[in-house]
């Protein structure tokens, strides 16, 4: 069963990649565009940090570390969850009907039919930023740190993915969700780049419990950077990212299912 789905995933994703590679110029331009826009964003952050040096007690190296960590999760999410970027076209153009006549779970089919290698360019930029930041913050490399970092990145990717899934699912009610997804994802990505401690309590609670992106970078960074800055939240939050990811997976999947049920009853 698992093997069948793994094989099917590879085949469907492979088909998308082959389609994409038919347009090499466009593919190349896109990669180039992404790298440039990443560099530009980093340039902005750099300009800011050069001027101010610290953000609420976080050194500029630590901020770049946060930024790199968030960006990594974001890039992986974009590679794997690209189909959700413009999920509303499935409804507007009636493509969802074509999915529902296949003997495969719809969400699996939709996700598998696109794996966006363009965003590998973003991931590579993020890896570079992260490695440099890792070095600058003088974190000591041990097996534990490596495992923790890896878990953090995986959980972060999943958390961002589930937010994307939730906002894409909204389209099953409203038909349109493209801009919404774009916005939500950029807003949350932006929020992961800075220490949550700069926000007032309400925003902190929002980013912890409702759009839990604080678990993508901020809380795990407490452990990695030994900041010990919990602002009244339980200290165990620094290890909670995988749990949060799991909860979010369940919540977003249930939401998706109810969206699909609604589609089954309205067909639009």
């Amino acid at each position, binding site marked *: 069963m698992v093997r069948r789905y793994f094989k099917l995933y590879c085949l469907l994703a492979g088909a998308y990649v082959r*389609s994409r590679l038919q347009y090499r110029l466009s593919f190349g331009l896109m990669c180039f565009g992404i790298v440039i826009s990443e560099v530009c964003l980093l340039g902005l952050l750099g300009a800011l940090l050069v001027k101010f040096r610290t953000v609420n007690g976080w050194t500029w190296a630590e901020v770049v570390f946060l930024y790199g960590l968030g960006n990594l999760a974001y890039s992986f999410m974009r590679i794997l969850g690209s189909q959700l970027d413009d999920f509303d076209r499935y409804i507007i153009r009636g493509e969802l009907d074509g999915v529902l006549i296949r003997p495969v779970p719809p969400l699996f089919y939709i996700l598998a039919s696109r794996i966006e290698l363009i965003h590998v360019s973003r991931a590579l930029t993020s890896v570079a930023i992260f490695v440099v930041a890792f070095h600058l913050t003088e974190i000591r490399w041990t097996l534990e740190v490596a495992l923790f970092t890896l878990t953090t990145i995986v959980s972060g990717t999943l958390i961002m993915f589930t937010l994307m899934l939730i906002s894409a699912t909204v389209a099953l009610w409203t038909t349109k969700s493209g801009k919404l997804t774009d916005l939500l994802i950029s807003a949350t990505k932006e929020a992961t780049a800075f220490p949550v401690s700069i926000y007032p309590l309400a925003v902190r609670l929002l980013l912890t419990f409702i759009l839990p992106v604080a678990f993508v970078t901020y809380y795990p960074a407490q452990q990695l950077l030994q900041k010990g800055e919990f602002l009244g939240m339980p200290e165990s939050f620094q290890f909670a990212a995988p749990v949060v990811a799991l909860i979010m997976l369940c919540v977003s999947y249930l939401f998706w299912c109810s969206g699909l049920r609604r589609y089954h009853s*309205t067909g639009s």
Partner: protein
Amino acid sequence: MPIITVEHLSKHFKVYKRRTGFWRSLSSTVSRRHDIIKAVDDVSFSLDRGELVGYIGANGAGKSTTIKMLTGILVPSSGHIDVMGLTPYRQRKENTRRIGVVFGQRTQLWWDLPVIDSFELLKQIYEIPQNLYKQNLEFFSEMLQLQPFLSTPVRRLSLGQRMRCDLTAALLHDPEILYLDEPTIGLDVVAKEQVRQFLREVNAERQVTVILTTHDLNDVEKVCQRLIIIDSGKIIYDGGINALKERYGKTRMLIVDLAQGYSDIQLEGVDLTRRDGNRIWLAFDRDTISASEVIVQLTGRYEIQDLTISEPEIEEIVRRIYEMGVH
């Protein structure tokens, strides 16, 4: 034992009102009103294995909605559907393994990849055993002459070629029922004929039950044995095509070229429906007056050059049923 049974099937939609006018549409940002539309309204029919049925109706008459409920895409508001012993919306996956679906307006093939790649992918999706896949692929590519463009990307195919590939794609897993939504839309005459012939053959040789919705009544006339007409969500005719003609096609049309332009034309039992210069169109009911009687009358009073009698086209009949309702 029927392969499809539909009983008292209904589907109701809420439709939100778009208000016109600037301020009114502005106020609809805050609150909206809606109407209930009965897209499918208490529809019942059953199909036997191996039937070839045309499901026709105007735009918005409810044919797509019915097909979507049969394929498990839509859940009915009320009523009962049984397809091969399954309830499509509850057992969606099992149902989809045993049906094939073709959407005429939208290809199910991978746009940028060679045709054969799409077939290979479908083989994996439907878990078609290798030997069956090979056998079916050979069968269909011979029948539809797919060989020349099997390795061409789908986007470079003509509409007709693409439809042939879509038909193959829908049949590779040996479905028992084939649903076609407007399969001939946009095709040229030759391609249309090819599709029609293919459907007849597949139906005859493989015992596939075929349901097709269409605008083009030639499809129905040339392909189907049975016709279901739906209007405003209700079935208004269900039966054979010949029976339909028998029942509603009693009117004959006589087209006459007169030798000169008579100013006044008087004939008994005949309607003058159209006049264009010296040519006139006369309609009559063959139960009340025979063609020869009309011609005798005509030649007795006027000098004629030429005449032809035509049977009503099915399109004409259906239009009349729509206009008058069924009596």
